[in-house]
């Protein structure tokens, strides 16, 4: 009898041996639940730089869109095929999930983990760091909003809103400018990230110039659609002080060893592939002008005698044509996130638009070209010679100021396809003709990430309707002409 009872209780006795807290087993021993905020900042900055710089046909095809490069054999992306490789998804996920989210997390942690020597919050340092992270976020949003249009913004980066609504692109843009103003005002002193900041080693003064330059750039981008706001932003930026020379350039200095090299090196050199050649679109123009940057931009053709570009979008024999230069494809070639040259081009344009800008448009234009040539490795003499040519000199070059600036900006923004894509849509110069084999017209925006159609359907549909259709031909609010 007793036996039976004991027996029936046995399983319970058995289990009594394991009454300890099971849940504690569910803590991952190999991954931390806390990390320093600056580690997130560095990672986000690097990922941002990679996304802007990459030449992967799965992510960054802007060099192909604006016809700096074209593909040799597998010409889909040169023909504006965004769908086969789901490029909008790549851009969207990278900027939202891999860049903005980590910046956001850095912001969440800074108030608690940036402390002074006594363990108290280092208020001054925190303030600068928060401003710098926000500037980087605004910079990231700028590419998103100029690529897609309406976007999840006010409800973005919040897991409690798994299917965020889309905000109006103009409203987002206005808020970004507002944030930038606040960030510029917040920056001061010297304390900040230090070496965790690859761009400026945490120098708040440099960051202030960067932020002002971004304000200038963002102001100019809406010059056609909102001249008043543009003027305010541009003049505020000038008052603050924009980049003052190539030594202010925002350079992300890659390392020579993987995995921290320039992504172009990975795509073009390490892979051993021969996917890209220069296009005749850029080569022919630069050759005509005897542009001193040609050897820095491209290799000679297969015959070793000349610069020859392939036809954008067509099948191109690799050997025949010039390729991206060894300078660009070097493992440690720094990525340029904001350059003095583009700042001077913007000032030139601002002057032409009648904003309150010191100097003349021609001075800014010449300084911009000179800065570009010097940045790429040319000399001041080469720049001066180049500027003497009637087709280059501001007073004599063909066309109105949009054409002059647009043409030279096209050359100077080489290797920064994404930026040129924005400038080209804004200035409509130079005119880029879509390949005859292209699957669409010249794209003036990206279609939304296909996942949004599936999972955020209602908001996606509303956004598509609001912008006039989720097409590559739908113009964004600032792209008036």
């Amino acid at each position, binding site marked *: 009898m007793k036996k039976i009872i004991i027996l029936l209780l046995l399983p319970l006795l058995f289990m009594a041996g*394991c009454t300890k807290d*099971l849940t504690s087993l569910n803590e991952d021993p190999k*991954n931390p639940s806390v990390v*320093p905020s600056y580690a997130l900042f560095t*990672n986000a900055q690097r990922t941002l730089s990679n996304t802007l710089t990459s030449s992967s046909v799965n992510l960054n095809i802007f060099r192909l869109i604006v016809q700096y490069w074209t593909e040799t054999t597998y010409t889909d992306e040169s023909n504006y095929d965004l769908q086969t490789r789901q490029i909008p998804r790549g851009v969207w996920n990278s900027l939202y999930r891999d860049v903005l989210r980590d910046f956001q997390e850095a912001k969440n942690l800074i108030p608690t983990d940036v402390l002074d020597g006594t363990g108290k919050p280092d208020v001054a340092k925190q303030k600068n760091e928060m401003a710098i992270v926000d500037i980087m976020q605004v910079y990231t949003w700028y590419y998103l909003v100029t690529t897609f249009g309406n976007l999840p913004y006010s409800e973005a980066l919040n897991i409690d809103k798994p299917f965020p609504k889309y905000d109006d692109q103009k409203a987002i843009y206005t808020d970004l400018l507002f944030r930038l103003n606040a960030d510029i005002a917040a920056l001061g002193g010297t304390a900040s990230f230090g070496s965790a900041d690859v761009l400026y080693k945490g120098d708040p003064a440099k960051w202030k110039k960067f932020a002002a330059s971004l304000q200038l750039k963002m102001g100019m981008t809406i010059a056609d659609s909102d001249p008043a706001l543009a003027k305010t932003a541009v003049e505020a930026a000038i008052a603050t002080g924009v980049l003052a020379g190539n030594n202010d350039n925002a350079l992300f200095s890659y390392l020579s060893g993987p995995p921290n090299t320039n992504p172009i090196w990975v795509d073009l050199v390490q892979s051993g592939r021969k996917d890209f050649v220069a296009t005749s679109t850029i080569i022919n123009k630069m050759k005509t002008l005897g542009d001193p940057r040609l050897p820095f931009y491209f290799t000679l053709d297969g015959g070793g005698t000349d610069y020859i570009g392939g036809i954008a979008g067509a*099948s191109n024999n*690799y050997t025949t044509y010039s390729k991206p230069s060894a300078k660009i494809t070097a493992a440690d070639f720094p990525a340029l996130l904001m350059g003095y040259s583009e700042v001077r081009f913007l000032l030139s344009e601002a002057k032409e638009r009648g904003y309150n800008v010191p100097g003349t448009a021609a001075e800014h234009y010449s300084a911009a070209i000179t800065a570009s040539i010097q940045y790429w490795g040319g000399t001041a003499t080469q720049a001066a010679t180049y500027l003497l040519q009637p087709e280059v000199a501001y007073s004599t070059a063909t066309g109105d100021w949009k054409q002059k600036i647009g043409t030279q900006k096209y050359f100077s923004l080489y290797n920064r396809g994404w930026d040129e894509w924005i400038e080209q849509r804004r200035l409509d110069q130079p005119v880029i003709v879509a390949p005859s084999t292209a699957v669409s017209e010249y794209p003036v925006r990206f279609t939304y990430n296909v996942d949004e159609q599936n999972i955020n359907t209602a908001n996606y549909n509303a956004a598509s309707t609001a912008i006039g259709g989720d097409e590559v031909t739908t113009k964004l609010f600032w792209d008036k002409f």
Partner: protein
Amino acid sequence: MVFLLLQIFFSIFLNKKKYIMKNFKLIMMFGLMFFGFQLFAQTSTVKGKVTDETGAGLPGVSVVLKGTSVGTSTGPDGSFSLMAPATATLVFTSVGLSRVEEPVRGRTTLSIQLVKSSNSLDEVVVTALGIRRSKNSLSYAAQTVAGDEVSKTRTNNFMNNLSGKVSGVEIRQTNSLGGSSNVVLRGAKSITGNNQALFVIDGVPFDNSNNNSGNQVTGRGGYDYGNAAADINPDDIDAITVLKGAAASALYGSRGSNGVILITTKKGRKGLGVTINSGITAGSILKNTFASYQKEYGGGYGPYYEDGTGYFLFRDPNSGFSPVSSSSPNGRLVVPTSEDASYGGKFDPNLLVYQWNAFDPSSPNFGKATPWVGAANDPTTFFTKPTSYNNSVFIDGGSDKGTFKLGYTRTDDNGIVPNSKVTKNLMNFSSTYNITDKLTAGASINYSNIVGKGRYGTGYDDKNLATNFRQWWQTNVDVAELKSAYFRTGRNVTWNPADPTDLTPIYWDNPYFTRYENFQNDTRNRYFGYATLNYKITDWLNVLGRVSIDQYSEIQEERQAMGSVTVSNYSRFNRTYNETNFDLLINFDKDVAKNLNVKGLLGANIRKQTIESISASTNGGLIVPKIYALSNSANPVNAPLESDLRKEVDGVFAGGTISYKDMLTLDVTVRRDASSTLPKGNNSYYYPSVSLGYVFSKLFEKATWLTYGKIRANYAEVGADAPFYSTLDVYNIVNPFGSSPQASVASTKNNPSLLPEKTKSTEIGLEMSFLRSRIGFDMSYYNAESFNQILPTTVSTATGYSSKFLNAGTIINKGLEVSLYGTPIKTKDFSWNVNINWTRNRNNVKALFEGSSNLLLASFQGGVSINATLGQPFGTLRGANFVYTNGQKTIGSNGRYLQSATSNEVIGNPNPDWIGGINNSIKYKNVSLSWLVDVRQGGDLFSLDLYYGLATGLYPETTGLNELGNQSRNEISDGGGIINPGVTADGKQNTTRVTNAQFGSYGYRRVPAAGFVYDASYVKLREAVLTYSLPGSIMKMVPAFKGIDLSLIGRNLWIIHKNLPYADPEEAISSGNLQGYQVGAYPTTRAFTFNVKLRF
């Protein structure tokens, strides 16, 4: 009564003290009742012999006193002896044989004959937790396959041998050597979790992990290392019982929710038995499962290169094949070596072209132009004739005190590509010892050692030569020449150098270099075993305590040699798996009154699981060639990836069975699990099952045509816990940028308030047999609803995350399974048995998280994805579709197919309409022949091989004459080009001619993904086995032997029907939830084995 006991038991567990006190008297009462039933009768030794229909002794037959668990088993000659009361009834059972009950009636010798009937309803079936039940009393679907059925074909992965032999089981196998097998019972129930059946050996779970990488399962390259159930020795299997539904497997807890494949291993028997098998296999590829090549055009993508025609490079051989210029003026035709397509120049034996071998100084064609013709040896000649050796020895024996079994099997498989080999050494030992009459100790230890070298590369990767040969190839390249180039030089002399002036490979290596230099190797050593103590308290009550371990460690090393197309590399992956189970089982089995039998079970289980892994890789290349060590890294090695997964599940369970007159059987089970992977407070869950079986034929005992009839119904709920570490958030540490540390937010948001997921299932079944079991069937209909699923639900990435763990999503599986069997002919010398299995499962994704209508499972190359789509069957293929006008494909103004605006349309459903198998076995005297026809009807797959291969012009479809009678590859101006069949947007027949002189017309660039979705149906003659057992007259001359069987076995003999061109529709990338996508598919091997089986 059982219910009361259960109630009490659980009240104890729930600490309801009052209840316990109140019911204490009840417990005592029951205790007294049990004791009261004990019989006290005179016992004496009963001896006897059990024979089969031919009079031969049957070894291993279980002999048990009815209503108790006291018994023995027969020795090698079929004899037995045991102590039995004169009034007792002995029950004789053996898997695959009909059950016989024989009253002793005071006799001391008995002679029993058991009839072999593979579908006898009296047969014994092993059910959950190893409980043996007569099939008669089962009230849920359980199908048994004899071990011989899976071991007789002498293949090394028994899982694949189940295909077509059991209804409700869908098995998908890969053609990769030692590759994985997808084993799913009754459809996918979990949207993102594991859907593979649980393997259980002698009551102990056996891990069947598949740790193929994320890249591998999404077709992006890597090796298929197979799944771990391949460590099971087919020779050690006595029987396999497939518990298909939740009611049958509920006692296994959450792990059993996908059904259970129960394996009973061979047991030692009295006396000594030795069985030796030795087999040799030779095979060859089935030609219709591999590419056929067009023989009209050679390498190139179109007419845009250097010479006048545009099809060739134009280079000066006198100046190192540099482009024609003033300094190198002598232009000659050179194949565009960098181009991995066959849209090049038309073959012309009079045209002399410098080809890849003209640049290799060691080649006889060095510096020579050779005729422009199709290769004499196309890639089909790359495949070698696979051979296998299979040897095994099994020894078993026993006495009154105990039994033992010792087995060893070794298989050596050489694959269809050079330098590929998988070797298995499998050792099994088990023993039991009767310490006292009541106390039995048992132990089992199994060791397996799997060594792979040169497994096939898979997916879209330079190491998958099937991708190379099916998608990117020059038809002018001779594989035999590549072979001699590699063996001549030992270097990567490729057909695909970047340029005649730059002989580094651009996309593809010399395939022999790939096989001999860029190979992988792997080893897995596994120990699986248990120790048990079984104490018989009384005849009807016993307690079993068991500790079991399943422990293995594996290493995978992968190499990329210097000089390969991709960066040289060495990586290693070490993983250890450890599972320990502690079980306590209390069983009782008693005839409590005339015609009333009660069985009961109480138990507890503690499962501890630890999986640790570390993977490391060289960074940015190697320094010294052919040294594969982390220290040989060109750059500092990045921090290895480590993982340490731990889990414990504590379960208690109870079950009871009441049978009345062997006619009505009621089963009730309940289990409670507490899992460490769930959040505190919500980490325990209950699941009950109830089953009822009714043998209605007992009412019609006079109806001679009806042998047996049973109707059964059951209901069960099964819960499941969460994946490892899905409740608390952690960060990912990223390799530092120089000296700056980096970290990132994980892309999946964890959830501290997860609840267990649930499956509710109902099943009804009908079993009938007629004409003394000459014909019969067993059918089941089931409906399982899996809800509250724990999913990493896809969220908008605008949240900063890809997914969030949530309880969301419902899948419904409904299905019908039918097993039909019959014996059309049965005479003394000749018999013919037919066994048909048919399965139809329909599943539907009924709910996803909130407003979302799709959950992306994975995206694949070719712009296609595999998804759980609301309102659709699980695993939909999505991608770009055609645009249809009046039901016809619409052609745009450029003459090409219009494609849907998004790459988001549902273009395929990978689930078959039905699957089935027809087994025939014929026996004439000593010769037996069996064959299996395996059928799969419906289901779709996307072929990346044809998506690219048709674009690059490898296949005959891309050449030939157009409707004008001209070569379609001619320029349109020369009468070439093609007119795509379809209509224009206004519904008129398309008449726009498009060029076919450049690559793409038939492939990926010009045809949407939907154009490469194929019907995956097949009808296969899967296996045939011809066995000749040497007759007694010969055996008398070799008295040392008890039996000698000679077998000729054929596998994959004939694909009778398929709709997918150039490949086997069954070929998959890996096991898992991502099915319906083919990339770099390997051809199927037809294999013949000659096997000798000796019994001593």
